[in-house]
């Protein structure tokens, strides 16, 4: 597993750094020109830009035939799928931390505190986790040639689902507020979005695994 993660890292580390720098620059530009209604877009953009090269891993592996070769190494098909999902998740976590850092930094520099940073960042995290959850099974079914459309579709799908989920999140927030759980009410929404994202991501892993197990090379 460590070897597979290391390969993924080597495959994309340059574009990962480029995209991360790009994410910081774009967020700085949006912060400067746009109003607070764009904050959620910034959070999503930072995490999505960091995660995009990770979805390219499958394309790069397929281009050189490494997707076939890797199965001749002492790893199982399960290990390969796990490595894709774990690597993407680690990058989403890094993106979430960076996104939080960018918002905190902006609050500090601009001296105008951004409210609900955790809430905003959790919204972005959900969208990007959902994009991965949608993209991986589709990449295994349709192959790397369709990866550009799948990645784009995943991001758009994540955004629509995040908006569509607002009603359900509101409903659960009311339940949580009525419960005696010792969780600050300001954390209810981010916790719910993160939880929904995780559940979908894990469900997607099992679907992707069953697809990948039957895949022929």
């Amino acid at each position, binding site marked *: 597993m460590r*070897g597979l993660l290391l390969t993924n890292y080597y*495959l994309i580390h340059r574009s990962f750094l480029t995209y991360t720098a790009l994410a910081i620059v774009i967020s700085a530009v949006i912060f400067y020109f746009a109003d607070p209604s764009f904050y959620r877009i910034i959070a999503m953009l930072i995490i999505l830009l960091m995660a995009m090269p990770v979805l390219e891993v499958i394309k790069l592996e397929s281009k*050189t035939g490494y997707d076939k*070769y890797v199965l001749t*190494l*002492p*790893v*199982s098909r399960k290990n390969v799928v796990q490595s894709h999902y774990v690597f993407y998740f680690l990058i989403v976590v890094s993106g979430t931390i960076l996104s939080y850092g960018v918002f905190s930094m902006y609050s500090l520099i601009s001296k105008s505190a951004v409210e609900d940073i955790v809430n905003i960042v959790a919204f972005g995290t959900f969208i990007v986790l959902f994009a991965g959850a949608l993209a991986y099974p589709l990449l295994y079914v349709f192959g790397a040639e369709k990866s550009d459309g799948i990645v784009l579709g995943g991001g758009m799908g994540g955004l629509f689902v995040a908006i569509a989920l607002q009603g359900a999140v509101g409903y659960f927030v009311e339940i949580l507020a009525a419960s005696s759980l010792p969780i600050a009410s300001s954390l209810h929404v981010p916790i719910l979005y993160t939880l929904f994202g995780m559940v979908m991501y894990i469900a997607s892993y099992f679907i992707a695994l069953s697809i990948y197990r039957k895949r022929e*090379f």
Partner: protein
Amino acid sequence: MTNLLEVRNIAKSFGQNEVLKDVSFHVPPGSIVGFIGDNGAGKSTTFKAVLGLISRDSGTVEIFGEDNLNKNATIKEDIGVVFDAINLPVSLTIKQLNKVFKSLFNSWDEADFYRLIRSFSLPEDKKIHTFSRGMSMKLSLAVALSHRAKLLLLDEATGGLDPSSREQILDELKAFVSDSNSGILLSSHIISDVEKIASHLVVIKNGEVLLNEEKEKVFREYAIAVMNEEQLNLLPEDIVVAKRTYDKSIRVLVSDKHQLPDRTLTEPMSMEELSVLLTRSER
């Protein structure tokens, strides 16, 4: 001693297209099995079926006596594979590749890997996508030879190499089987390579194995007879391996030259002629 690889009666179809038909052969310890066939004969499909990269319609594949490569990935510690293209992550350097394989193989031998890299004169810090085909194939072979594998599966691994590099690689392969515990399945278009190092021959045509024999026995017992239709009809059917009709005669590969009628005209048999007769045969 158990065969390193035992392929029994495997069949595979893609839709209506029957690609492998009842394919059987084995790789005993200490042997190099030359796997010969034209493009599209089923060599690469056989490799994929052996490695579990495609499903089989029927038949069994035992590696080191076990038929569960997809369930027990640790068996692959002892298998080295080279396909007909580079198939390694090309944006990595050799140094990065070494780190990756060190994590993947318990038995990765870093010293041996770098010995091979230096002996093949490959640059350690350049990305693999800058390598020529010959350099890439050498690198793939260096990987396959660097984790103390017992079985090498080489699909057209010597293709694209210049004669001197091929010689160097064939020497490495001969050294690999010299301990008599290891074995190689080597598919190649380059008949001279097979002739030089193979101890067994498997010839496949249209997904069917036409010949599966020890090379020494083939050259000792087999013969190419030149005859007409009448003479052919008189031959015992079980010794006719393949035949090819020419303008005025038929060339017949027989598995036991001692069963040929007296004064039957035979041709000197080289590896090249044997291969051409089998791959172009009518049977």
